């Protein structure tokens, strides 16, 4: 933490980072449970394909890809084809484009921290940062950094635990990853509180459901994104007023 302060060239305000971490930690607890659980599942799965904790953690730390990492397990167990892996990663993660568009404003002028925030942007971090406002005494930048860093570390630590001792686990964790579904439901409700957000919320759900019905569970994201974009842009005049 101290190193980060020096890197930003900001003087040491006592307790500044503790305050930010204290504000950020409670909101990341659902991500903690979800990521430890899924990260562990990933570590165990990699182990079962002969890729030990070193490789699992390396993938989690460098790619930090969530669902794409599970897809990549399949790619690591067939013929070597990095071009396919690259293209598939873009398609599976295309939803990140929307996160970036939504956070252009919040991530403006944050200096060196910004690169790390963008590097570790994922579904959960985006959802928290776009929905939860930092308390008054915490600088938004510190709040965003703490959330991003914590979520990133949960995933890596989960992967490491899974890779190292996943085979000795006896506690039945089936269903624990529902924490992430619940998190998105709650954050959706938080957004829903603001009346002006409601049309967009309805558009998001209906486009996703329509895409799910037409294209099936494995190909739902990109058609849903295209459809959403079309409806949001088409209805811009109505939604703006």
């Amino acid at each position, binding site marked *: 933490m101290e190193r980060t302060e020096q890197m930003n060239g900001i003087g040491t305000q006592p307790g500044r980072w503790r305050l930010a971490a204290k504000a950020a930690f409670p909101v990341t*607890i659902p991500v903690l*449970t979800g990521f430890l659980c899924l990260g562990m599942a990933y570590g165990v799965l990699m182990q079962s*394909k*002969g*890729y030990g904790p070193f*490789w699992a953690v*390396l993938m989690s730390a*460098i*790619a930090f*890809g969530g669902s794409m*990492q599970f897809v*990549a397990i399949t790619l*690591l167990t*067939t013929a*070597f084809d*990095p071009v396919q*892996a690259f*293209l*598939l*990663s*873009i398609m599976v*993660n295309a939803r990140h*484009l929307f996160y*970036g568009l939504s956070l*252009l*404003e919040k*991530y*403006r*002028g944050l200096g060196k921290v*910004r690169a790390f925030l963008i590097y570790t942007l994922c579904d959960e971090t985006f*959802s928290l940062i*776009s929905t939860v406002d930092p308390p008054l005494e915490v600088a938004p930048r510190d709040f965003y950094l703490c959330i991003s860093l914590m979520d990133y570390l949960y995933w890596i630590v989960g992967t490491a635990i899974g890779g190292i001792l996943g085979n000795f686990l006896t506690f039945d964790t089936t*269903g*624990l990853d529902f*924490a992430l*579904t*619940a998190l*998105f*439901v*709650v*954050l*959706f*409700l*938080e*957004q829903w509180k603001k009346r002006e*957000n409601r049309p*967009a*919320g309805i*558009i*998001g*759900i209906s486009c*996703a459901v329509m895409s*799910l019905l037409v294209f099936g*569970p494995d190909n*739902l*994201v990109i058609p*849903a994104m295209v459809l*959403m974009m079309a409806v*949001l842009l088409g209805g811009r005049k109505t939604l*703006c007023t």
Partner: protein
Amino acid sequence: MYLTPMQTLLMILAVAAGTQLTRWLPFLLFPENRCPPAVVTYLGRVLPTAVMGLLVVYCLKSVSVFQAPYGLPELVAVAAVVILHKWKGNVLLSIAGGTVLYMLLVQAVFA
């Protein structure tokens, strides 16, 4: 391991490159020293709620409503999250309550 260490490393870098491209592209297209077009600002305002809806559907995409248990555990648990949240308004309580209920449902009730 199916691939050699060198091939594995290259695969990791390929996945990382693809993933990072999707993260960086909006920030590269609309650099922070220039004001983005009004339409992009508009999208930045409406997308978070729309995407949250998409993520909820995405999490539930593999639930089969035509096969036992007909998506009941998910339906009950999501309803519990909504009710808890409307009632107490405590983020952690809503999530923990829904998750514990869901685990009970899939491990004990519908197992």
